[in-house]
């Protein structure tokens, strides 16, 4: 099937909107992607035809809803090429998934004297939970792998920081939400495992842009969030090996995560139920399933190829603009570009672009340390692409940036 972006755009009702009298040019998919009609309709159908609370209901509607919810888990497992659907835990978003690991693995399994190794290019979601673990008085250290000037992970520094064998967990973004950098995941796994460390990848950005394969990757934990993958808000995924889930104490307590409860003693349900306390995001799971079906039908290789075209095009067009500086220049990168203009603050620039119908994000994109690392404390503008982004939109952005520079001159 050839990739027909015009046809794809018709699947996204919102892309036909007008903003301040101009057609919407949505370049903020990295923050959250728009939803295809198939996702919206699946959620409507779930609520209007097949809704009830899941599990424990011995009647037909509840059985239907339970089947839908578990089918979503199986779909996520297939999407990740996981060995077993039970490796898939549903959470509220990526942030909740990483916090789950920081609590259950970090506080429940890691030992004093061990370290967590993150990097300078992390999103706050993959920084703050580990700082909180470090500051919790359990003797867990936090190490930070450097990033090179071109925005890549400094692999020598990674090796050096793994060398003493104290690192218990390496937790790194598979793809940066600011630089677009895709890290060499297999190599990281090999190095970490050789040094006795487990590996978590924050795949919030990566799964949107690449085919990922848990069995090939060999990591220990993998995290992503529904709303960036053209799915609903309110749902995220933690993929975790069953043997790790067995060792981890539960995080949140409540219904559905127990085997039996008495006031004296409570026993936990089997994984993954043990980590899904309370009524789960049922309708959101159905929506995520539809989103996965949607991107799978297009094909992740086609999505990736389209994006490579966009990235090359954007590189060419943006480098042509006087006074514009791009953050990072990684070899292996996805469709995310953070940039500054010499004579305009990121926020003023975003406001100008908004007037032209262009939605870009301005600020530090929940990656303040990375902005400090590159000396752009004031923030950057970020344009990020989805599978519905066109080269014409990038041309329009380039034109608007050129005019913006004139405006502020």
């Amino acid at each position, binding site marked *: 099937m050839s990739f027909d972006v015009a046809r794809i755009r018709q699947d996204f009702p919102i892309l036909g909107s007008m903003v301040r009298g101009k057609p919407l040019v949505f370049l903020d998919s990295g923050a959250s992607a728009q939803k295809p009609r198939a996702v919206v309709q699946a959620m409507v159908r779930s609520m209007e035809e097949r809704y009830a609370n899941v599990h*424990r209901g011995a009647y037909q509607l509840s*059985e239907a809803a339970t089947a839908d919810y578990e089918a979503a888990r199986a779909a996520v497992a297939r999407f990740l090429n996981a060995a077993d659907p039970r490796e898939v835990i549903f959470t509220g978003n990526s942030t909740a998934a990483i916090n789950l690991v920081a609590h259950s693995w970090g506080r429940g399994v890691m030992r004093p004297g061990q370290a967590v190794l993150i990097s300078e290019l992390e999103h706050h979601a993959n920084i703050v939970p580990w700082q909180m673990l470090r500051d919790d008085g359990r003797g867990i250290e936090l190490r930070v792998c450097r990033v090179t000037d071109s925005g890549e992970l400094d692999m020598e520094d990674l090796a050096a920081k793994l060398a003493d064998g104290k690192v218990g967990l390496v937790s790194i973004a598979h793809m940066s939400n600011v630089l677009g950098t895709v890290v060499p995941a297999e190599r990281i796994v090999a190095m970490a495992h050789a040094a006795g460390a487990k590996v978590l990848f924050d795949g919030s950005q990566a799964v949107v842009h690449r085919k990922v394969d848990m069995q090939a990757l060999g990591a220990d934990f993998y995290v992503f969030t529904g709303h960036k993958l053209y799915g609903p808000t309110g749902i995220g995924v933690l993929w975790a090996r069953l043997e790790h889930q067995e060792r981890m104490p539960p995080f949140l307590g409540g219904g559905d995560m127990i*085997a*039996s409860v008495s006031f004296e003693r409570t026993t936990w*349900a089997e994984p993954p139920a043990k980590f899904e306390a309370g009524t789960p995001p049922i309708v959101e799971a159905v929506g995520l399933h539809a989103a996965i079906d949607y991107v799978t039908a297009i094909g992740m290789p086609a999505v990736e190829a389209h994006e490579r075209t966009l990235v090359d095009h954007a590189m060419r067009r943006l480098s042509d603009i006087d006074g514009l500086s791009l953050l990072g220049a990684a070899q292996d990168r996805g469709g995310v570009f953070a940039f500054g203009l010499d004579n305009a603050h990121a926020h003023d620039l975003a406001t100008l672009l908004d007037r032209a119908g262009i939605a870009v994000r301005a600020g530090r994109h929940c990656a303040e340390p990375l902005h400090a690392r590159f000396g752009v404390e004031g923030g950057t503008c970020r344009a990020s692409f989805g599978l519905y982004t066109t080269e014409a939109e990038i041309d329009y952005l380039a034109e608007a940036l050129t005019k913006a520079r004139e405006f502020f001159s």
Partner: protein
Amino acid sequence: MFDDLRDLYQEVILDHGRKPRNLRRLQDADRSAKGDNPMCGDRMELFLKLAPDGSIADAAFEGRGCAISMASASLMTETVKGKSAAEAHKLGEGFRALAMTGTCPDCGASLADEMERLQPLSGVHEFPSRVKCATLAWHTLNAALDGGSKEASSE
């Protein structure tokens, strides 16, 4: 109102459900295991007495639960008596297929009589949330045969 439910609650099920066979503790059991279906609160403990050749000399259980799970445990203990561990495992597989799909195409002629006896429970396949009630006894049997006093769960 409920006539079509006679498929699921056949007279033999209701009978075994009300008066389960082998509902007792085996004091001199060689093997035992506990089974638990957190979904519906069914709990049971299974006891096995083994013959010198390792086959099942006697089987009994304690516990309580719904008609389906009691009948299933009752029929299971009746059916496995005299079977080798391998035969019992195979029967369990056959039964799980029966409970989930209503038939067991892979069940060979060698187990035909036993499967015939378990047939009344096949109606459960139309009630996904009840399948686990029917399979709990067989999960527990596996746990007992696999040698522990492990806790089995049909979830």
